[in-house]
């Protein structure tokens, strides 16, 4: 008899199949297990099965289903838990995973396998009935939202699982299965179906991605951070993502499970707490995080859970970082031999350098100064000007060369022209997600929102220093500091490498004639504020020597410059433009 066809792959570290075969998520799990790191047991239904599912009139054939059940059995054996068994229940996550991630694919369903009985079992095991109930209700909500596409408001803790079930059933006329295997089968079908969703199809059409192919389905055991004293969940950055300092940085929630980090239901502790209570787990975590950083040659953001003293890694990805940290980390990784200078200059963006070079208030400057208004920081940066309430007045006075701060109770579309003309914005109402915050961030205007009813009005006519990073407004023009590239320990070497790798020579000044592109053509559309690439190309074609322009640092400007063949550009500082050109030349 011939060997039966293998239609699922258990991710036990014995092999790392291609990303094109098993999708990004399973590939990441396989990579971690291959490195010898412990992750919750998992298996994947590869991408090839998606097409077979659709050819088969959107059903899982018996053979595949039997293999899926054997994959579940493998997880059950590895964890010592069984799906649907209230005394030792196995819960799993179900995720989609195409070779290239795209909109419209099904989101993750967590805690699949929970039922009324399992909920009571979980309540007993964790000694936390509230947690068990919330997990169950949250599962019903996610299942309704993601698998059934029910129109539900975002989940809030409170309603019982049966209430959520009713809400879902009312909206879609279908009940969430009570049997864990039925839940699993339906969720897998929903992942495969999502490949053919309208949104995924239109994305592929837009980007010319083939409809052939499909998505994999990854099924992974859930681990519990709330099983007794030696459990918890957390996140570790291999370096400080705010300063770039080469010291692991993170959060640890003893007894916390999954969404608790976001929900803020548990007190977040420092990683030193983990080092004190479970030194072996802590040192294993630090060691593993180091392995991952080395493997990826970049700072990692690692999610982990500790279940009864056993560490599991859930996910690793390149860490998001502040502009200051981006610069520091790029330099340090070169010094440590993890990356080359050529890679370092591609890891820092021109926007990040612009941000690092912004003027700022030194700590000692504001140490003894009382702010005249405090609100929520909405867009970072420091700016100084006179407070003005009327946006029309801001527009006309700014046109005459004054620096003005728009101070208003709230902002409407009628104020946008004033926000464009102002150097900063302060509003009475609103939070960091208000329209005012969104508009000022899009414009890069420092802003402070929610300073309190009537406060902004009191700022009118005054000289103001607005710190959009700290959410403070000071009376008068306080002295500002600024960073100099040449005497900065990290910026100076970065500038030297950028000089070496930039495809075009960028100089702070040039002798002889420099063609100012802004004066020979309208390179910026005055209505939209966007670069007019065609006008820019025409202006560039007139150049016979060095050029300068305010728009070359934009993505459109940089590509036009590279295409034009112009070899010398005048810009001071040179670094931001050089990094943009390096980035543009790589794509």
């Amino acid at each position, binding site marked *: 008899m011939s060997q039966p066809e293998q239609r699922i792959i258990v991710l036990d570290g014995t092999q790392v199949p291609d990303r094109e075969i098993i999708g990004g998520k399973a590939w990441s799990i396989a990579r971690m297990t291959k490195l010898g790191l412990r992750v919750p047991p998992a298996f994947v239904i590869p991408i090839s099965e998606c097409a077979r599912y659709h050819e088969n009139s959107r059903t899982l054939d018996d053979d595949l289903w039997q293999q899926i059940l054997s994959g579940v059995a493998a997880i059950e054996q590895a964890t010592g838990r069984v799906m649907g068994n209230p005394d030792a229940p196995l819960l799993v996550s179900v995720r989609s995973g195409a070779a290239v*991630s*795209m*909109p*419209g*694919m099904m989101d993750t369903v967590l805690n699949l396998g929970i039922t009324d009985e399992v909920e009571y079992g979980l309540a007993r095991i964790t000694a936390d009935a509230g947690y068990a109930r919330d997990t169950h209700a949250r599962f019903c909500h996610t299942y309704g939202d993601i698998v059934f596409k029910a*129109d539900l*408001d*975002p989940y809030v803790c409170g309603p019982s699982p049966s209430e959520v079930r009713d809400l879902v059933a009312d909206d879609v006329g279908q009940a969430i299965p009570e049997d864990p295997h039925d839940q699993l089968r339906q969720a897998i079908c929903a992942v495969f179906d999502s490949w053919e969703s309208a*949104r995924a199809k*239109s*994305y592929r059409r*837009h*980007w010319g991605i083939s409809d052939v192919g499909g998505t994999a389905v990854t099924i992974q055991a859930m681990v519990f951070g709330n099983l007794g004293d030696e459990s918890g969940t957390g996140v570790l*950055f291999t370096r*400080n*993502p*705010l300063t770039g300092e080469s010291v692991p*940085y993170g*959060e640890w929630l003893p007894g916390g499970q999954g969404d608790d980090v976001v929900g803020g239901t548990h007190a977040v502790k420092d990683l030193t707490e983990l080092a004190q209570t479970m030194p072996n787990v802590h040192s294993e975590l630090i060691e593993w995080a180091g392995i991952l950083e080395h493997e990826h040659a970049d700072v990692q953001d690692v999610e982990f859970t500790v279940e009864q003293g056993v560490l599991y890694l859930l996910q690793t*990805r*390149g*860490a*998001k*970082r*502040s*502009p200051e*940290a*981006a610069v520091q980390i790029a330099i340090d990784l070169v010094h440590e031999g993890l990356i080359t200078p050529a890679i370092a200059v591609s890891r820092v*963006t021109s*926007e*990040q350098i612009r*941000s690092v070079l912004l003027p700022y208030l030194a700590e000692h400057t504001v140490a003894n100064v009382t702010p005249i208004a405090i609100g929520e920081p909405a867009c*970072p940066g420091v700016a100084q000007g006179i407070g003005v309430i009327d946006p029309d007045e801001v527009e006309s006075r700014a046109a005459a060369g004054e620096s003005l701060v728009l101070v208003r109770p*709230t902002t*409407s*579309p*009628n104020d*946008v*022209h004033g*926000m*464009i003309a102002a150097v900063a914005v302060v509003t009475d*109402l*609103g*939070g*960091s*997600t*208000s*329209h*005012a*915050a*969104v*508009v000022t*961030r*899009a*414009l890069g205007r420092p802003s402070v*929102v929610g300073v309190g009813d009537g406060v902004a009005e009191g700022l009118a006519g005054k000289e103001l220093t607005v710190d959009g990073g700290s959410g403070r407004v000071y009376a008068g023009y306080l002295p500002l500091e600024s960073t100099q590239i040449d005497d900065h320990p990290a910026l100076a070497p970065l500038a030297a490498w950028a000089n070496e790798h930039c495809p075009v020579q960028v100089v702070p000044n040039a002798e002889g004639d420099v063609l100012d592109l802004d004066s020979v053509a309208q390179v910026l559309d005055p*209505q*939209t*504020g*966007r670069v007019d690439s065609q006008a820019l190309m025409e202006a560039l074609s007139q150049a016979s020597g060095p050029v300068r322009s305010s728009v070359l640092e934009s993505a459109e400007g940089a590509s036009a410059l590279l295409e034009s063949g112009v070899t010398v550009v005048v810009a001071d500082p040179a670094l931001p433009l050089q990094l943009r050109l390096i980035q543009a030349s790589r794509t």
Partner: protein
Amino acid sequence: MPTVSEQELSLDFLAVHGLAVRKAAGPGAVADLLNADESAVAAVFDAAMAEGKIAGAKGIFMVAPAGQAWLADQYPIVYASAREDGALTAAYERFERVNTQLLALFTDWQTMPAGGQRVPNDHSDPDYDRVIIDRLGDLHERAERVVGNCSEAEPRLGRYLERLEAAYDKVLAGDTDYVSGVRIDSYHTVWFELHEDLLRMLGRQRQE
């Protein structure tokens, strides 16, 4: 002054209202907002200029203080039945819920979490951005229902849906300025205008 019933909303009123929503615009942009004829809007603008309701130069107009006061008087009359009827109010409540989520999405687009704080999104992580664009697609589907409900009560609001659709299409095609760009008809710009339009129709105060 004649009382305008909701069924026969005159362009005399709508053109000035549309200009108020757009702040500073030519007849073409206001006609686009209202789905009306450009030359008809231009004619209303000429008359409104003569009455001192709007001011303008070089083809760009703004509502004058006298015009703002006139609009404030007109709204409760023009939209009396819409305000009482409940259908539009109910649609607006739903709009507010989607609004909260959309504004959070714009914030996630512009900033990203790094070690417990938020830093500007440098768009260097395509996966992070793609998740947000996917969420925008999800919210756009909800917006379709909400704006659909709004336009059942006031058909001209359906034009906003077409503009939202156009912005979303541009985002999907990779022109990501159309998520929250300011000087263009980005998703946020159109949504912000729709919000203003609804607030004016219903006589509500902006809460943020």
